[in-house]
């Protein structure tokens, strides 16, 4: 059995006296999309920060079997981790293509020195390919400040996938998108798994999460309260009580993984 793309083992995060994440364990198998849902303040984003190395945590984070708990964020990225932010956080001084290019691999010191003396070129084919994979190839030359919120989200996702990561943590990629955009995003994410990339997907849109993910983890007050395939979570009494509420189930009719 091969190691999962991402494994979180007993991770806890404390802010002062507050336990934002408490002993959370989960695995994201190769090529799968795992959803992470929970009410506001359940510690979802904190967990992603811990996975990506932006907050200190107890426990272990593994990428493809390698322990990365002690590594700095950029080093985790080089081990195959990507992430997006709720607030997107693009490089507003760089064009869309350059935003993506920053995240493509790490040049060797020699290549860096060399390109200071000869005219450097952007790997247009590769950057274009990444942009096309989320359907924004036409935005190549645009500046982030000229884009709509939905387009900015897609650029953020393209940037997270640019370095061919093993696993990407997506923090609310569908927030601020309309229904058709959300549906298209779900299809694109499913398409990206065919390249072998796994995902940990956080979102509030239950329909989107259930429709996109292979497996769903539910957290509340920093702890995992349920996990399983979407149809099981959908029927789980405790989840319904804690988070979804009966009305949520009635309005958001989930489909199976497409």
């Amino acid at each position, binding site marked *: 059995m091969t190691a999962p793309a991402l494994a979180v083992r007993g991770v806890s995060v404390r802010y002062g006296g507050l336990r934002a994440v408490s002993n959370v364990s989960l695995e994201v198998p190769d090529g799968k999309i795992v959803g992470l849902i929970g009410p506001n303040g359940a510690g979802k984003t904190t967990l992603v920060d811990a996975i*990506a190395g*932006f907050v200190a945590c107890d426990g272990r984070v593994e990428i493809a079997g390698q322990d990365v708990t002690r590594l*700095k*964020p*950029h*080093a985790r*990225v*080089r081990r195959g981790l*990507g*992430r997006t*932010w709720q607030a997107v*956080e*693009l*490089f*507003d*001084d*760089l064009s869309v293509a*350059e*935003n993506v*290019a*920053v*995240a493509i*691999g*790490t*040049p060797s010191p020699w*290549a*860096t020195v060399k*390109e*200071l*003396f000869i*005219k*450097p070129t952007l790997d247009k084919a590769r950057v274009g390919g990444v942009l096309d994979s989320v359907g924004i190839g*036409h*935005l*190549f*030359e*645009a500046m982030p400040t*000229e*884009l*709509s919120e939905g*387009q900015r989200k897609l650029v953020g996702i393209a*940037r*997270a996938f*640019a*370095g061919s990561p093993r696993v990407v943590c997506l923090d609310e990629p569908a927030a601020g998108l309309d229904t058709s955009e959300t549906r298209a995003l779900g299809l694109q994410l499913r398409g990206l798994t065919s390249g072998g990339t796994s995902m940990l997907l956080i979102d509030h849109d239950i329909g989107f999460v259930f429709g996109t993910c292979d497996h769903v983890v539910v957290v509340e007050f920093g702890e995992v309260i349920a996990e399983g395939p979407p149809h099981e979570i959908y029927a789980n009494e405790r989840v319904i009580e804690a988070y979804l509420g009966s009305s949520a189930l009635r309005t958001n009719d989930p489909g199976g993984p497409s």
Partner: protein
Amino acid sequence: MQTILVFALLGLGSGAVIAAVAIGVVLSWRGTGSFNLAAGASVMVAGYMFWAFRTGFFRFTLDTWPAVIATLAFMVLYAVVIELLAVRPLRTASPLAKLVASLGVLLLSQALVQVIFGTAPLASPAVLPDDVIVVGDVPVPVAQLILAAGVSLLAAGLWLIYRFTRFGLATRASSENEVAAVLAGLEPSSISVMNSILANLGAGMVGIAAAPIVGISATTIPLLIVPALAAALFARFTSFGIACAAGLAIGVGESLIFYASTKPWFPNRNGVALSGVQPLVVFVLIVVALWWRGSSLPQRGDLRERSLPRVPKQEQLARRMVPMVAACAIALVVLPSEFRQAVVTGLVGTVLCLSFIVIMGYVGQLSVVQLALAGIAGFGVARLSSRYGIGFPLGPLIAVVMALIVGVVVGVSALRVRGVTLVVVTLAAAVAVEKFVFANPDWGGGQTAVTVEQPSIFGVSLGTDAGFRGLGGDLPSPVFGLCALVVTAALYAFVANLRRGELGRRMLAVRSNERAAAAAGVNVRALKVAAFAISSALAGVAGVLFAYDFGTVSTSMFDVMTALSVVASVYVLGVTVVQGAVLGGFGMVGAVVPLILQKWVLPQNQVGLYVQLLIGAGLLLQLRFYPDGILIASATKRERRRVERLRGSATPPVQPANQQGVAA
């Protein structure tokens, strides 16, 4: 023991001034969220005005009390003018823009004072009693004690105002969260002007009282901002009490260091104590304060704008460069002697400014230590050849590496800070290098200039004294100018190229968003160190070229005020484009633009002051009308037009729908 006490008490005088400036810095930060580099200049202005009222400079002489009142009234006016000119227009601007505006105020005030009152230090009539009280059995002037008590009272009064009045509450609210304060019906702009009047009144009183003790000098008083910033850092830019206490303590400490320097155990050279230990200690204090009190200033919930101008792409580099290089080459041969010299100086200045483009423009780290690094390389190349016989080409190479190492050390000590806080570290470093290294007669120049041996290789001279056919030995020789041109053009292309490549992209990514850059796999720390290394090396090259260009190096070439002027001029023109470096370089004192002004426009002997005046005024105008810098405003417009053209012809439009595509 008693002597130590006396020196400690004597230090209270300058400590009071430092404390007053520190309080001014805290007031500016709390009141307007601006990082006020001009706080020391207020003390200077008050000192000069009081002197002028008392001595009949304005053709009338006032007694002490009327003069005090007139000076304080003037300080209120000064506060209001600065508020209208440099603070209010930038109320919603980034902290960086506010900082640069205060730099403009500093340059403008200092130049104006010197133009009006002259450059020589003045002796102000005493205000405080010159009585002496006896401590133990040693006499201590009572004025020092009164000053220290007065500043402490000022701090206490401000604390009371801030703690217990509605105005204080409003200020605290608006410094915590300006948006919320506006929504709560408070008026940030009147809060801001009140705070700035308070700050200037405080500085005014201290300036009047302290002028006879510390002396009125337009070159030293404004730089008290450096120890004052250290004190303000310890106070986290919020506590008046800590700022005051730390300021007094720094004054006392400096005085004690002075006392220690009279002792035989103090590091000395031939019996003469090392100078400039005080600014070195202040620099260390600032680094300590930054580590101890947290890496950054308390955040203000302001309405924020983007903090740095955008970075236009560098297109058609070769086509733009060839005519410039050709014009310089021709100018270097055909122009009369003084203009040839000015062109060379402009080229060297360009290299210096390129180092600002890298560290400020590309990485967003506002560093003012570059000129000091150039000085290290300049003195290095002079000393290496005079003392160790290491000449061209090894000497300059070692000198550049020295600058690089010092630059990286400063950069690493400031790795945890970014943006405006970095200014404090680099400013303190620049002052420390100037006073500790350059003023040292062994390492730097001391009070005199050091001669530099001109470069030559295989017996062929490359220096300013090299023979050149047709000039009959007229100096400076175009040979050195052409060498400098080659170096400058190469480095210009290098820095422009940096913008287009992977490394530059990563620098801009860090500038935009450090967190996101780390998440894209960029090692932010390593990248900053690399940027410091590159820009320090550029500054080092500039320093070596300066040394050869002028044939001598002296401390005054690399002083802090010159450095601040250069930073300001590059910022006015455009800190993110290489072209800004060229204009900044050719606008440096000694280069072409000031030479033209000096010959035909301005009074001959004070051209440096007038250039500083122009830069200061230009900075305030630019921040108001072209906040991105003059060159960048035009480049942005050009780029937008190009993109629109491209979009109109080939690709579908970016904006939401596809409707316009058909029409095009």
